[in-house]
């Protein structure tokens, strides 16, 4: 094999070896440029989200009843229909960890039950 061919193969081998760092740098550069472009439209997003109920995406919920999943879960009672799979926690196939709701304020007064008087039996016909 000629020396030129051997040198060519060496260049190819080295090229293969540096392909990964090159791809990593190229992706990082492209992503960084994308983030710079996004910064120019960020004000528009913030202005619009201020008029929305929440910052959930228009496709945030797997169910039509869960458009704003962060506001509606865990109280949403059902998905699109009985027995239909729902990827979100309300009756979902895979529920969110309960710890997620650990800090959610609960109903204060109900946590300290007070004895309620037993209602007097009513008798039909009595005034």
């Amino acid at each position, binding site marked *: 094999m000629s020396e030129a061919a051997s040198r060519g193969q060496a260049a190819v081998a080295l090229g293969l070896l540096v392909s990964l760092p090159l791809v990593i740098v190229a992706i990082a550069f492209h992503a960084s440029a994308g983030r710079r472009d996004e910064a120019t439209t960020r004000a528009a997003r913030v202005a619009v989200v201020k008029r929305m109920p929440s*910052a959930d995406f228009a496709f945030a919920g797997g169910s039509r009843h869960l458009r704003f999943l962060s506001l509606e879960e865990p109280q949403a009672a059902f998905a699109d229909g009985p027995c239909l799979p729902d990827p979100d926690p309300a009756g979902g196939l895979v529920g969110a960890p309960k710890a997620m709701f650990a800090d959610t304020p609960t109903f204060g007064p109900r946590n300290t039950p007070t004895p309620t008087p037993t209602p007097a039996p009513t008798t039909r016909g009595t005034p």
Partner: protein
Amino acid sequence: MTIGLLVFALRALSRRKARAVALGGGLAFAVALVAAVLFLSDALRGESDAARNALPDLVVSRLRGGRPATISLQDAQKIVGIDSVRSVTPRVWGYVFVPALQANVVVMGTREGSPPLEAVKGTLAEGHDLRLDGHAHEMIAGARIAKFLGVVVGDELGLPSPNPKAPSLKLVGTFSSSVDLFTNDVIVTSDADARAVLGLGPDECADFSVELSNPEEAGVVAKTVTMRLPDARVVDKKLLARAHTLAFGRRSGIVLAASFPVFLALLVLAWDRLSGVGDTERREIAVLKAVGWSTSDVLAAKLSESLLVGVLATAIGLALGYAWVFLAGAPLFRPALAGFGVLYPEAPLTPQVDVAQLLGISLAVLGPFVALSIVPAWRAAQVDPMDAMRDE
């Protein structure tokens, strides 16, 4: 590792192209799959994090029988008096099912005094913001709603409503595609018109947005609100963040878990291909050792082959994963990870990828792949040249 060894490895690979392509192709596909899932879930999380800053500190809604219900405007007075509460704003919003779209549309009311959208470039694709004088009966709609209903700026639309006196709304603008992710299925109108369309009474609203003078006190204020309004549900920003993080994390986890058999099959294939030393390869190794190559030289040459295949496949996989998500719009993946919607937003996502993440994926893939090839390479390097020649 010398250039000579790399050249030798390259020649060896070119002699066994089919095996190299099968292994490299499988590895590239696996890397593309993992990278695409991670890139997409990070991009969604990034979009969500950036938008969350625009939200109120607390949202107070009401539950009746465990279901969300409207809340009385008078209840705002019980919240206003709490220390640290700067403002309480009733919000009027809800869903309207539009049979023509077979989808729910979000109808959101806008209060007088809201900052005009035209003041911020990139919010509206066409038209102007609402005139909130109470008689205009105007609306701004997501671009897809307008497109699928076939309405253009200037047209009037009567939304389905339980209230027979609900006015038709005149489309005065459509949201820009850059805010598609949030507005695709939304119709914004005045509070009065939203109330009329949704059938809410004059003293009802959907929830209160609460701004605090010290957001760090959100937890304390939330507890006080639930003491004063026992049927209230209070959502703070932290809970929103957790809901989003869990939603995207869980979905990407499920997709990755579902892909696990693919990785397993790839590793089994790699082991099978790499451990099966063919006659030609045995002969090559025998000749090398007969001309003076040591076992460690042969081992290094075999590892170089794996490294070349692994590095190139990882590079192709990363590039494919990135292009799949950010250039092609993540076909197949996006509904699984982002969620489903009848009115599906097509807005491009912003990459949140950085060098550390890319290096992490590369090492996580390359490490096991090269490690997997050590034992077969060692076995191949142990070939006795005399035995190999005699077998021939």
